[in-house]
């Protein structure tokens, strides 16, 4: 590794992440202005490795929607979609995107191209309903890449098992059906060597992503899984399969290893190490994070980093000698892991709590997302029954500020930290 200094390296991930994000959006805006159609995809199984080889601009509507909330204009988009007929009780991401489409792709960060095709997994059912909206609006092909998930907790199957092979053949067949469709949409012949190269870059990113997550076991932690982690996720999704994406994460590993080796943590005076379960509160994103960091809490890990990276954190690397089979296998294993992090997360959280030496778990179910939120209360109950670890359960939303009450959140969070402090005090008394 090259000799590096704090001046050049610390904070580079966030700066470069923001730069890449701007460049990505500039590219999308150019594509929109040129009238090129985009490939609309989602974070849990984007298939960017494959789509990139067809030179299609890749659009992540989830990321666009959350950006409207971070930039505090989501309510304008939500209102517009509700005026169009959508219920206040459905996914806020969907509604922000509907309004984006009604506005000709205009977003605070730039303009997105119209879809030429949508490719999405079933990791979230709303992906399918969402894509149906584009199908109706634009009459474009929409393709569900159906990835069967884990059937019951702890019953994952692996290559060689007949049930796994049944699933793998299904995913592979769908990929083989998708490729000719992409050729027609993009007007470009499929090039398996380009796919190999893209998968090679994805492998590099995957290795680095896994390492970045591991490095946060350091004390103090080297990044905040909630705030910094969201920037990393943006790059992990938007640049998957690209040279820039792989390089970014390799450099991020370098930064985090440097910080770990030199005992450099986040800006928080780390007193409590926490896990975040759910989706962030984007309408007050910075403030939401501060409600924890001001009291010495830093998020060392989150389920979000696992599922919103499409299961990349599991570290599956493609076999470039047999790209299509391996892509199918990788999609199956990784997307399944993303789903497991939402549905069957009890054991994972227990392991995470152990390996990251955490002091508490924060559950944040949200109105907008039933995929992530439906099982959280029961998960918390089950987890508490197995391990004595403090937890906080707070509800708000990822998009809709009408259901976000900062004062109520603060009261609950303050009380949680008082409990953490009291617990630590009691432990200290016990140990003396």
């Amino acid at each position, binding site marked *: 590794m090259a000799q590096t200094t704090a001046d050049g390296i610390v904070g580079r991930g966030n700066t470069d992440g923001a730069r890449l994000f701007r460049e990505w959006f500039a590219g999308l805006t150019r594509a929109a202005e040129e009238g090129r159609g985009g490939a609309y995809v989602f974070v849990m199984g984007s298939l960017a490795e494959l789509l990139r080889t067809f030179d299609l601009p890749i659009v992540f509507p989830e990321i666009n929607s959350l950006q409207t909330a971070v930039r505090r204009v989501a309510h304008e988009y939500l209102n517009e979609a509700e005026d*169009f*007929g*959508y*219920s206040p*009780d*459905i*996914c806020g991401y*969907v509604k922000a995107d509907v309004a984006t489409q009604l506005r000709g792709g205009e977003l605070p960060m730039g303009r997105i191209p119209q879809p030429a095709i949508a490719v999405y997994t*079933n990791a*979230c*059912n*709303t992906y*399918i*309903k969402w*894509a*149906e*909206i584009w199908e*109706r609006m634009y009459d474009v092909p*929409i*393709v*569900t*890449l*159906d990835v*069967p*998930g*884990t*059937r*019951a*907790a702890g*019953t994952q199957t692996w290559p060689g098992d*007949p*049930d796994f092979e*049944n*699933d793998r*053949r*299904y995913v592979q*067949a*769908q990929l083989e*059906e998708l490729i000719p469709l992409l050729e027609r949409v993009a007007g470009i012949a499929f090039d398996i060597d380009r796919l190999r190269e893209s998968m090679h870059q994805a492998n590099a990113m995957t290795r680095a992503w896994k390492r970045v997550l591991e490095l946060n076991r350091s004390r103090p932690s080297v990044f905040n899984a909630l705030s910094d982690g969201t920037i990393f996720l943006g790059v992990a999704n938007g640049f998957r399969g690209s040279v820039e994406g792989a390089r970014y994460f390799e450099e991020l590993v370098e930064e985090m290893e440097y910080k770990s080796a030199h005992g450099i943590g986040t800006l928080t005076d780390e007193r409590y190490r926490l896990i975040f379960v759910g989706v962030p509160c984007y309408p007050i994103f910075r403030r939401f994070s501060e409600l924890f960091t001001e009291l010495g809490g830093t998020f060392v890990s989150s389920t979000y980093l696992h599922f919103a990276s499409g299961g990349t954190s599991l570290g599956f690397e493609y076999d470039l000698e047999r790209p299509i089979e391996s892509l199918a296998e990788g999609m199956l294993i990784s997307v399944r892991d993303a789903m497991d992090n*939402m*549905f*069957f997360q*009890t054991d994972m959280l227990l392991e995470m709590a152990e390996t990251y030496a955490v002091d508490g778990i924060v559950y944040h*179910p949200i*109105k907008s*997302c*039933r*995929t992530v*939120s*439906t*099982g*959280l*209360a*029961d*998960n918390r*109950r*089950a987890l508490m029954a197995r391990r004595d670890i403090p937890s906080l359960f707070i*509800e708000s939303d990822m998009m809709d500020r009408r259901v976000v009450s900062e004062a109520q959140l603060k009261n609950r969070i303050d009380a949680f930290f008082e409990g953490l402090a009291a617990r630590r005090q009691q432990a200290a008394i016990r140990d003396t």
Partner: protein
Amino acid sequence: MGGPLTAPPVFPQWRGEPLDEVLYHCRELLEDDTYPTVRRWRESGGKVIGHFQVYFPEEIAHAAGALPFKVRGGPVEPTQADSRFGSYLCSIVKTSLELVLSNRIELEVFVTHPICDAARNLAAVWGRNFDYPCQILYLPQNANSAHAITYLRGEYDRLRRTIAEATGTPITDDALRGSIGVFNENRALLRELYRLKRESPWLVSADEAYALVAVGGLIPREEHNTLLGVVLPQLAARSAKRQDRIRVVYEGGFCEQPPLDLIRAIGRSCYVVDDDLLIGLRWILEDVAAGEDPLGSLAESYLERSSYSPVQHDLRKPKERMLLERIRQAGAQAAIVTAAKMCEPGLEEQVAYTRALDDEGVPYFVSEFEENMTSFEHLEIQLETFVENILFE
């Protein structure tokens, strides 16, 4: 077979009774939160396979001699289940769990499906609370893949192994063929009931028809076949006269069910000539071939000869076009387009449905419901106004 198929009927009350009494008993059974038929089945030593909405290949459970029990919420307060869920959820998810937490229903296996984001969570929630197999049946969501049938056949085989192990009864192809025969008969009888609804809706009210269909999820299908076989000719022979009511299609009952009183209220203003209520029981539209490969035949029928719902994307079945077709085939003048509160797919589909109905100039009434709602007056007044507007247009 391992089930108590030779045991006394679990729903004997209606036998030998006049038609109105039979219908009364069906309605009573439907609203009985002690689930007496399932209890009697268990008391006879029977096993129960609970399956959440919408569609489940019940033949596979039946072939193990088990009772396939349709988990579709219920008329109960989710006092225990509430603490297992967050705030923003449909009612059916909560009351379904309540049925088992409160021991009203006991199961050997619970199966849910990836029909929506809430329902797919149920296997995990259920599995953290009960020791028996609780799992997701991954019905294919790429219905247009040429490989979907082959995949689904494999998935059904996995389910066959799960149920056989849980019930202790091997599921043979012969047993499956027998079960397919029972369910083919049931589907034919339900088609006949719906033909009657379409052609002579004055002979069977909306709530009567609904009760007759819904009890099928609570009793062995052989008993349901016997019931329908007795009732259908009596309905057809009724002397009721046609009234001046508009003919409507009711849409939005594919998962959570509106309360019986709501269906009755709608039936007071309109003839409900077709609907998607409990569509899973009527999902397969034709007889399933009970040939060489019964699991393959079930898989093929699920994909190739089936109805539609907001929770299945199939390029061959655009939902709004299917709704318009349902309206046309039923000779309906209008549609009632509902969605259960907090039901993401239902609420999203409402937008597409109403836009298509607008485009076609079909009048429609839009509403939301909840399975445990008790006040219908406001809705009934709105509906009457809607009906009058059509009648006096």
